[in-house]
């Protein structure tokens, strides 16, 4: 006990106490100033770049400035910087080998930031997962699915896979597949579909609705109506126009067929044998 106390009194010379206090002050002020600086920087950058670019740049800046502050504090404590940097170099190489995946994700993250295929709030689909972009970070992108589940996708996967951004452009097209009976007059059906599209205010007048005669299906004449919509109204129009098409078809006596099954008895001419069961 007395040995430890004497070591402590030997170690805590007045010069060392001053150095310790100085290092603590540098560290405390450094952290506060860095945080304030980053908040200010983020505010400025948000006006000029996308929110995720601003956030990532601020994060990198924060850790860089914080490293400089820590180095200054260590220097104040009397540590030799060249030895420290040498050790840091070896450590970096070791960490680099051990975390190749993370490094790959970081580099992919930087490419994503430069490429900007999507932004926070966009609806994207990556490898079968579809959802809103919640966060774009250096290592991963976080998606919020429509079922409100969080999906973390490593940036490397995003770079390697096909990404579909549904909200990149201000307008989108909804393709509605409609089947009508073979007896129907296609010109009349086309006019009716056009009328339905014209009467829905969410459906854009220009680009004009697209009508495609897709072909002769097993049970129906297959048609497609492509209507353009403001991206925010996509779901609203998808539901409302399908409802309106059904109502218009019913009103005008246009049949929407469904697959029918013909039971064949094995002979073309013979009627299907029917037996009435008696109790």
């Amino acid at each position, binding site marked *: 006990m007395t040995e430890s106390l004497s070591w402590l009194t030997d170690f805590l010379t007045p010069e060392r106490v001053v150095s310790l206090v100085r290092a603590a002050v540098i560290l405390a002020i450094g952290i506060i100033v860095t945080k304030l600086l980053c908040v200010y920087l983020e505010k400025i950058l948000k006006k000029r770049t996308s929110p995720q670019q601003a956030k990532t740049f601020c994060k990198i800046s924060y850790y860089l400035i914080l490293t400089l502050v820590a180095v200054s504090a260590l220097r104040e404590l009397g540590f030799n910087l060249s030895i420290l940097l040498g050790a840091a170099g070896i450590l970096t190489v070791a960490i680099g080998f051990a975390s190749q995946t993370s490094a790959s994700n970081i580099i992919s993250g930087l490419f994503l930031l430069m490429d900007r295929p999507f932004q926070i709030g966009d609806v994207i689909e990556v490898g079968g997962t579809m959802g809103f972009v919640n966060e774009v970070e250096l290592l991963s992108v976080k998606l919020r699915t429509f079922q409100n589940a969080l999906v973390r996708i490593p940036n490397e996967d995003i770079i390697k896979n096909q990404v579909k951004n549904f909200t990149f452009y201000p307008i989108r097209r909804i393709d509605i597949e409609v089947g009508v009976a073979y007896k129907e007059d296609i010109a009349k059906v086309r006019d009716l579909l056009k009328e339905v599209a014209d009467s829905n205010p969410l459906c854009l007048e*220009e680009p004009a609705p697209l009508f495609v005669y897709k072909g002769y299906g097993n049970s129906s004449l297959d048609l497609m109506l492509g209507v353009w919509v403001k991206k925010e109204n996509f779901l609203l129009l998808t539901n409302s126009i399908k409802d309106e098409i059904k109502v218009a078809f019913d009103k005008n006596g246009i049949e929407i067929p469904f697959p029918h099954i013909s039971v064949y008895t094995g002979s073309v001419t013979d009627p299907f044998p029917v037996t009435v069961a008696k109790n």
Partner: protein
Amino acid sequence: MTDNSSRKHVWWGAFSVPENQSGRWCIGPAILTISHLKNEWTVACDTAQEAAENFVEIALGIEQPEETGPKAQVARFCLSHAGNTLVLTPALADRSVVIRTEKPLHVLPAQEVKLYVSSPLWVRIETGDPRLIMQDIPVIRPSDTWFGTSTIEGELCYANRVYGRLSIEEIIYRPHRAITPVLLRNHGKEPLLLERLNLPVPYLSLYESGEGYLWTQSITLDAGADNKAGLELKKGPPKEAKGSKLISEPRNKADKSILSRALKSIIS
């Protein structure tokens, strides 16, 4: 002095709706029912397809308003004070309106023509002192449309099909639309084809003429030979709107980018 009988189509202004009473405004096919309850206003918007386009009717002091239709849009607004004043103000659309003439119109080289086009109106419903906006809604919701060279570049607007009348006598007044005189000048050597015109209504003021009709300030469009277009928003009411007064300020302030654009971003 304006003859009030000629202003029967005026549906805007300040109205008194006491508590537990309602008012109903029929503006063309649109029906607006506003009810005043204790610390609350209820606004219901509905449409009556069979109503005439120029029909206007105001009914105040209704104690039991009719049931709104299934497609009516109803919104409630709560306030701490109990004022009875309700102010209805017409306003222009919150996005540009794409005027599409029923038939393509050609303006021959070195010619100028004045077109009278109409655009849909919005209604601003306010109450209280100072006035608080409860709703700013279209009287009749116009269809959305896209105005641009491709589906990637362009502007989201409202669609508006008009005849494009050349004479003031031919104008048909509708209470849910405002009229804009557009002077088209073709400085080019080729005929100028006008199928669609992007009318920047959020930058226009709305005026009420002495007869109670709604006009916007007039626009001059100079189509140059270099595929550039100069848009001039004339200050003050149009000369056609006699004895007019300002009724609604522009929603946005016009800048140089609005006034000088590529011809394709105004006409197509």
